[in-house]
């Protein structure tokens, strides 16, 4: 029987994501989202930092102490890595938007480039910061 064009048919559903083996493609995809959420939280910290700085040295002192603490440094290091991963992943997405690099081989090459570049840039930023006296 030919289905009527006006009735809705039940369409096949995609299986749940949990049953797939994690792959570079899927892991980077979800990491772009997770880092985006983490960077949104970092953006709140940026505003707190600016508002504290605008308040004068006395309001800035606790923020400075938080940044200089070990906990603060670990969080900042994580935020730096999240930033570079999101930046590199975002550039990869912008290239895809121009309809380039969709071959499976290209997708894996660009994926590993994103991972390597993010690690290198994160360490480069912290080494540069340490050399400036931070």
């Amino acid at each position, binding site marked *: 029987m030919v289905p009527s*064009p*006006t009735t809705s048919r039940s369409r096949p559903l995609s299986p749940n994501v949990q049953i797939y083996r994690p792959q570079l493609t899927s892991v980077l995809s979800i990491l772009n*989202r997770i880092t*985006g*959420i983490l*960077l*949104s939280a970092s*953006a*709140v910290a*940026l*505003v707190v930092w*600016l*508002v504290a*700085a*605008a308040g004068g*040295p006395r309001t*800035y*002192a606790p923020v*400075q102490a938080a940044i200089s603490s070990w906990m603060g440094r670990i969080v900042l290091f994580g935020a*730096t890595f999240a*930033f570079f991963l999101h*930046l590199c992943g*975002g*550039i990869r*997405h*912008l290239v895809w*938007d121009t309809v380039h690099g969709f071959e499976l081989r290209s997708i894996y090459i660009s994926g590993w480039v994103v991972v390597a570049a993010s690690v290198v840039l994160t360490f480069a*930023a912290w080494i*540069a*910061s*340490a050399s*400036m*006296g*931070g």
Partner: protein
Amino acid sequence: MDPQNMQDMRSPLARAIGLGSAREGVGSWWAQRVSAVALAPLTLWFVASIIANSGSDYATFIVWLRTPLTAVLMILLLIALFYHAALGLQVVIEDYVHSTTKFAAVIAVRLGCSALVTAGVVAVLRITFSG
């Protein structure tokens, strides 16, 4: 012909056109890309500046923040950043949150980002124009 029957006679395509993402989604998608392109140089400038100011005390840091170029770039960064964050968080909410909570969460994100960008810009202007 009553309105109920007229609705039944429309094809699936006619009922789908103008609904959902076909109406406004492209605007958000495009805005996400444009803000991303703006953020790439602005965030790199910010990270480079923070590295350059690593050893600075409060006074040195304020002197840097007060220069017109820094103030302009910092305000542009705040605007692009919270615009990009609001668009991105909205997509995440729309994908995972359903029912009426979705509406409330999207409104909360939009209002929150507006408040934060305003607070940030006012803080930068206060530093730039004070004393």
